[in-house]
């Protein structure tokens, strides 16, 4: 399914039982869920379980979602809550050493706000990339490839002269800054009282 498909359309198709639309939602937000889970330092198995619970809960929550725009926030909050819940549950199962000050805090510690903001910014960047026209998105992804793809190969694959790769990259990045996803992050930053970026 086209990565630029609107969230509204994906959610309403998924509500009608469309597995492809659901898979597209998974594709868009699973990196966010996994990135958040990683921050909580759960075991791999517990991380897998939390991740699965988040998606199962989204399946049951799909019809209760009033605004599709609220979905990213819901996913992020649910993931963090599930991580904290499981961390705390696992701690209970371990005998407590009274000398261990971490255990004495009782409930699991949340991840630093700055860390969460960074995770959400990276989600916005991926969504911004999805908003770009396919050709520009492909160019940026090729330029990001590791190991790097030689310009000659990029030129051949995308059918643009080597000399215009640099200028096209600059235009693609300008376009990226003007996507809905990135403008939303910048204006949210301004609202919170942050400096203009």
């Amino acid at each position, binding site marked *: 399914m086209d990565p630029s498909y609107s969230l509204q359309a994906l959610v309403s198709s*998924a509500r009608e*039982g469309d*597995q492809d639309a659901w*898979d597209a939602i*998974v*594709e868009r937000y*699973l*990196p966010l*869920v*996994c*990135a958040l889970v*990683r921050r909580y330092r759960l075991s791999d198995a*517990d991380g*897998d*379980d*939390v991740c*699965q*619970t988040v*998606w*199962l*809960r*989204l*399946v*049951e929550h799909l*019809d209760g979602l009033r605004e599709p725009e609220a979905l990213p926030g819901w996913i992020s909050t649910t993931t963090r809550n*599930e991580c904290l*819940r*499981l961390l*705390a*549950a696992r*701690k*209970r*199962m*371990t005998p*407590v050493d009274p000398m261990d000050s971490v*255990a*004495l*805090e*009782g*409930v699991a510690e949340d991840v630093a706000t700055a860390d969460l903001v*960074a995770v959400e*910014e*990276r*989600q916005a*960047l*991926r969504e911004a990339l999805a908003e770009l026209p396919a050709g520009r998105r492909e160019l*940026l*992804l090729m*330029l*990001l490839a*590791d190991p790097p793809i030689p310009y000659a190969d990029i030129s051949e694959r995308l059918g643009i002269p080597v000399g215009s790769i640099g200028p096209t*990259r*600059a235009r693609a*990045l300008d376009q*990226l*800054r003007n996507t809905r996803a990135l403008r939303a992050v910048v204006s949210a*930053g301004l609202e919170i009282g*942050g*400096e203009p*970026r």
Partner: protein
Amino acid sequence: MTDWSDDDALMAALQEAMAETDAVTDRRRETARAAFAWRSVDAELMELLHDSALEAGAAVRGSDTARLLSFGRGALSVELEVDGDEVSGQVLPAQAATVTLQRSGAEDRTVAADGAGFFRFEGVTPGPARFVVTASERTLTTTWVTL
């Protein structure tokens, strides 16, 4: 705060963002997609009302290691005690009922709750689970929870 006005800085940020996509395992992608099969449009959901795991000081109570969960909708609620691989519970108000444990990738397990509403499952492994309670001709499903 990230500076996206510089082209190279923005490219570096994009690289980090795409690295998170590359870090997604096939296993997580598969289970996330498969979750859609659990969609049931008219299930009546019991919300999670209480989870002792989130109580402050839960870990310092020493020998008391069981986790208490409570779900409810309207007048009906179900209380669960998770102790190792044993889950015991009670349907409230106390009454006979059938309780089904549902897990992703496993057969449903159904037990009867006695006249006082008590029931028990043994050999419950960690992972997502939900409980379907049928009592007084009503069927209610708890929200998913990670055991």
